[in-house]
């Protein structure tokens, strides 16, 4: 502690500058492993290294930074340690590794990436934040701006889905990030040295090495990117069933072929959905409604396209029969095995979480009986006391499966049930309204159709969606006649999707009222 420096060496450009590396990670996701590897890599290959981090609650799933500095050992004075800094400074980092795309963005916002020197390595996958996930609509932030800024502001930007690649090899993202780092050539160490570090780490070495090699290859062979995108073209759904029904369905498909080109893909998807929901005759009903919507529509058939989408969604409403049907199909069994079982020998036990209320039971009643209950809140309450309870059903077992299978079989009588009557009335009223509005303002008619998006969820959530739908359409009178009426309804709808309670919607309606 008491050495007094008397060396007055003239500082200047140095042959072996300090290399500065920042690792931006999501807490608990391998940032520590990666920084440990980088430190070991340097120390085993003739470098001084120093790593720091801020552990603690910041690491409980939050964004966190690891920071490493390296300098080649001076053979003339190998004992002398450089003075390393303990945190990354703006514009003074050589390599930034970000374990996720938003963390790439964060590195840019923190000015850690300098255009003249920083190699930026980031995984393109998204680990969505709670602020994005909790939005009732689609809260995901668009990734394009981050990609563009990173490409423009980094000296080199290496970016691909390193998480998916790691998973493909049974490993975690730190392995593929390390591979991309090796592939970037930003550090003066040979490939072998990287491998040796992983081999010495002692846990999951085989998988780590596999992910490492794959990421290295992907980084050094950019052509692989094109191959990846080409390989993922979606396959068209294939319909199976009795020949007679397939013939009937073919006739329906021909009706779709006569529709405008912009409407066709949605109409076909919608047709599939409603037939899957009920039967071929229901598909015919769907096309009847759609054709009605297309009459009087004009190119580019925005009204028809919206109708194709939302009529299908409205017709394939979420009731107990649909849920029971979907949960007892053979395709679901296959999917569960694929998603959860790792080999043939394993057995799966499946528990469903149900919580029916009186409303759902009344929905399953024949129309008249349902109406009787619906009009009598007291009877409804008594029924609710009887049924309203969480029920766990084991659908791998014979009893639980058979019960659901039979509920799914109610499909045959669905058209006569109370819920269907309610849904059909609601649908027809909404469609008539849209057509009526369209006659006066085409764009506004399209927006009325699109408001169907607000109705989703079950029980209270469904009720809330319904109320938002009503409130948005309730504002129709306020905007009708304005040039920008359609735009206002679109804004109201988007506001309704921003939060659960509809606070943004209330604000937006207030604005509309002040117009």
């Amino acid at each position, binding site marked *: 502690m*008491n*050495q007094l*420096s*008397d060396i*007055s060496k003239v500082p200047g450009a*140095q042959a072996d*500058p300090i290399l500065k590396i920042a690792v931006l990670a*999501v807490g608990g996701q391998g940032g520590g492993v990666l920084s440990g590897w980088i430190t070991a890599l340097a120390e085993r290959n003739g470098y001084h290294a120093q790593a720091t981090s801020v*552990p603690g*609650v*910041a690491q409980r*799933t*939050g*964004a966190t*930074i690891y920071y490493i500095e390296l300098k080649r050992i001076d053979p003339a004075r190998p004992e002398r*340690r450089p*003075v390393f800094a303990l945190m990354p*400074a703006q514009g*003074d980092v050589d390599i930034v590794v970000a374990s996720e795309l*938003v963390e790439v*963005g964060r590195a*840019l*916002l923190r000015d850690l990436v300098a*255009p003249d020197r920083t190699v930026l390595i980031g995984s393109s996958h998204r680990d*969505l*934040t*709670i602020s994005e*996930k909790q939005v009732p*609509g689609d809260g*995901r932030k668009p990734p394009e*701006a981050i990609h563009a800024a990173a490409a423009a502001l980094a000296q080199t930007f290496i970016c691909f889905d390193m998480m998916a690649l790691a998973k493909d090899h049974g490993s975690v993202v730190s392995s593929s990030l390390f591979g991309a780092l090796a592939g970037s050539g930003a550090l003066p160490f040979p490939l072998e040295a990287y491998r040796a570090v992983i081999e010495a780490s002692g846990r999951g070495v085989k998988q780590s090495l596999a992910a490492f090699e794959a990421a290295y290859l992907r980084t050094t062979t950019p052509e692989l990117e094109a191959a990846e995108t080409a390989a993922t073209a979606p396959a068209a*759904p*294939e*319909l*199976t*069933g*009795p020949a007679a029904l397939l013939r009937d369905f073919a006739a329906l498909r021909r009706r779709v072929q006569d529709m405008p080109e912009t409407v066709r893909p*949605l109409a076909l998807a*919608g047709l*599939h959905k409603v037939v899957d929901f009920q039967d071929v005759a229901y598909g015919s009903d769907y096309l009847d409604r759609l054709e009605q919507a297309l009459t009087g529509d004009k190119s580019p058939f925005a009204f028809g396209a919206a109708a194709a989408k939302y009529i299908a*969604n409205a017709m394939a409403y979420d009731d107990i029969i649909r849920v029971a049907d979907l949960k*007892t*199909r053979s*395709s*679901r069994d296959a999917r569960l095995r694929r998603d959860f079982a790792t080999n043939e*020998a*394993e*057995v*799966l*036990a499946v528990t469903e*979480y*149900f*919580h029916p209320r009186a409303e759902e039971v009344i929905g399953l009643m024949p129309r008249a009986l349902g109406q009787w209950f619906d009009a009598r809140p007291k009877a409804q309450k008594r029924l609710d006391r009887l049924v309203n309870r*969480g029920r766990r059903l084991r659908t791998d077992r014979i009893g639980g499966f058979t019960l659901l299978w039979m509920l799914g079989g109610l499909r045959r009588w669905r058209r006569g049930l109370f819920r269907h009557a309610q849904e059909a009335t609601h649908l027809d009223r909404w469609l008539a309204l849209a057509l009526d509005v369209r006659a006066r303002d085409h764009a506004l008619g399209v927006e009325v159709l699109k408001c169907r998006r607000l109705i*989703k*969820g*079950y029980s*209270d*959530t469904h009720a809330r969606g319904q109320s938002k739908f009503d409130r948005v359409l309730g504002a129709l009178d306020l905007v009708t006649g304005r040039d920008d009426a359609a735009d206002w309804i679109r804004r109201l709808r988007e506001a309704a999707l921003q939060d*659960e309670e509809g606070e943004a919607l209330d604000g937006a309606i207030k604005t509309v009222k002040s117009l």
Partner: protein
Amino acid sequence: MAERSFKKEVQMLRYGAGDVFAGEGILAITKALLQSGVGYVGGYQGAPISHLMDVLADSQEILGELGVHYEASASEATATAMLAASVNYPIRGAVAFKSTVGTNVASDALANLASGGVTGGALLIVGEDYGEGSSIMQERSHAFCMKSQVWMLDPRPDLPSIVEAVEHGFQLSEASNTPVMLQVRIRCCHVTGAFTAKDNIRPPMTVKDALDAPKRDLDRIVLPPASYLHEQDKINKRMPAAIQYVKEHRLNERFGAGTGKVGIVCQGGMYNGVVRALQRLGLADDYGEGDVDIYCLNVTYPLIEDEFLAFCKGKDAVLMVEEGQPDYIAQAFGAMLHRAGARTRLLGKDLLPMAGEYTGQVMLDGLRRFFRDHAPDLLSAQDIAPNAAPVPTELAGLADVVPGRPPGFCTGCPERPIMAATKLVEQELGQHHISSDIGCHLFQIMPPFNLGATTMGYGLGPASASAFNDSAANRRSISFIGDGGFWHNGLTSSIGNAVFNQNDGVIIIVDNYYSAATGGQDVLSSRAFNRTKSTNHPIEKAVRGMGVNWVRQIDRTYDVARVRDTLKEALTTAETGPKVIIASSECMLNKQRREKPQRAKAMADGKRMVVPKFGIDDEICTGDHACIRLSGCPSLTLKYTGDPLRDDPIAHIDETCVGCGNCGEVADAAVLCPSFYQADRVVNPTGFDRWKDRLRSAWRSRLQSHRDASRLQYARG
């Protein structure tokens, strides 16, 4: 069992003279304690000191061999009071905790300890949690040293300096009969490096020796008239002795040519940042060598007047680099210059920010301005008149698409369902005043839960609701406290206070079997067996013993409906006095760490194991995300189906799910939607399992093909 094990690393603590010790800062501190002949150690966990406590816990065997007594103290106050063992006996003792929250708790003991003074060296290692990533209020520990007359060491953040600081700390303490505080900043605690070790030293006097030959000295007890003498002693004897020791051993360092017209004074902890700025200005090489004079304060209290004035002699201007506020050091130095009639200008917070962390950019800007104003000849033309870099246009708007990522509950956290239940109760009974506490449960204040109005300190959740006690009010207050805070001081400060003052509020004790937020250390109520500590003391017994009559113990927090109903009952019952709900389930992070290797081994051995996971049926989920708003689980995320008929992404459970059951329970309790299911994978099934499965599969297939024969459906992936 702590979150991180140092079992392997602690073997380095046995290193002898000449061995090169490489590791993290905290490990170096532990080794330095042993090299200094420490007789007893203790402390309380909390970043950045948690790992130090974990290292000590993992090195109990080595400590035992050396005759060193180790304690995991009940609180920072307990830890500091423990240093009383050095008051009458020449035994060296060290305690560690985080600052300033820990220092606040410890301050009563610290003041008493400092007043009477010590015989054996007493060292307080405080982890300074300041700056980015900190979880506490931003204050300085420096003030505690000034008010209690405790010396403060702030070594340069590299391992040899830290080790020397520990060794000198004990000697300084003994030379001046004063406790010494060793400040290590958070990054310094976790910095990697190396130093040459010395042999460990057995304490010349152990606590056993002291117990067997007790001593007392009335002069050291804080009671009039001794307390008045203590104050005089501090000023007339202890401080001068300390100053003499610091000067003699040249604890403060000087770097540079020694002839400059300007100079920099910095806290030891700021040294590397200062050098980095000098490196970037072309004024130092990578080894920190250069012409600029630096006076590096490895001791920041007391300040050495003549040393400082000598440094300033012949200098036109000196820059004081002092992080945090108020700028106590600069104020003291300013007074010294003034008294001496010196003409040297002292700059500090006029060039550097008064508040906030001294990051690389802050330091570079501050130093550049200092040299530009006072020694422009040292700077390059570029640095004298730097071009203001324009903000790249690409960054405009980027902030809107880069959402924050605050810390939150881990996957499978047992505290999540408690918050979900609280939210459900609020949906039914309206919003309540909620007092939060310190611990993982404080994440309740973040989205998606948005619960809690204040946090007043560790173990003080219920105490901070104590004013909200009025029988005329229609609602009761709800307060949270964790098991860590409960045992730290909550039992008396919060529970006892509520009983005594007949508080009608509801107290939820979040019991996850560990002091979880600090890294999973054991507490009294931990359910694990601990070889050296007494655990398994139920919180319920303590609460009842304190006089609470309405107590509900919930042993599975994932039962959301039960937590909800219990909380509702607590808020509405006619019973008076505090209503205490103890919600217990093991911290998932620790549970996984404990069970995962066992499970993997059992599976590999061919044993039957059931592995639960949760899933969501894509077609049944409607994409309203109500489930996410009651969960926030990292494994519950969104999926884009590519279905042209869907506008919004659906909920999806990824492979990191640990099968805690929260999703299903919330879906049930909140009546959300039937898309959740639990898939239990039976690994290594028995013959009976397989027979049942064959039977069931056959039955299912039969019914399925019966239906498939009369309908159209398209093959789903």
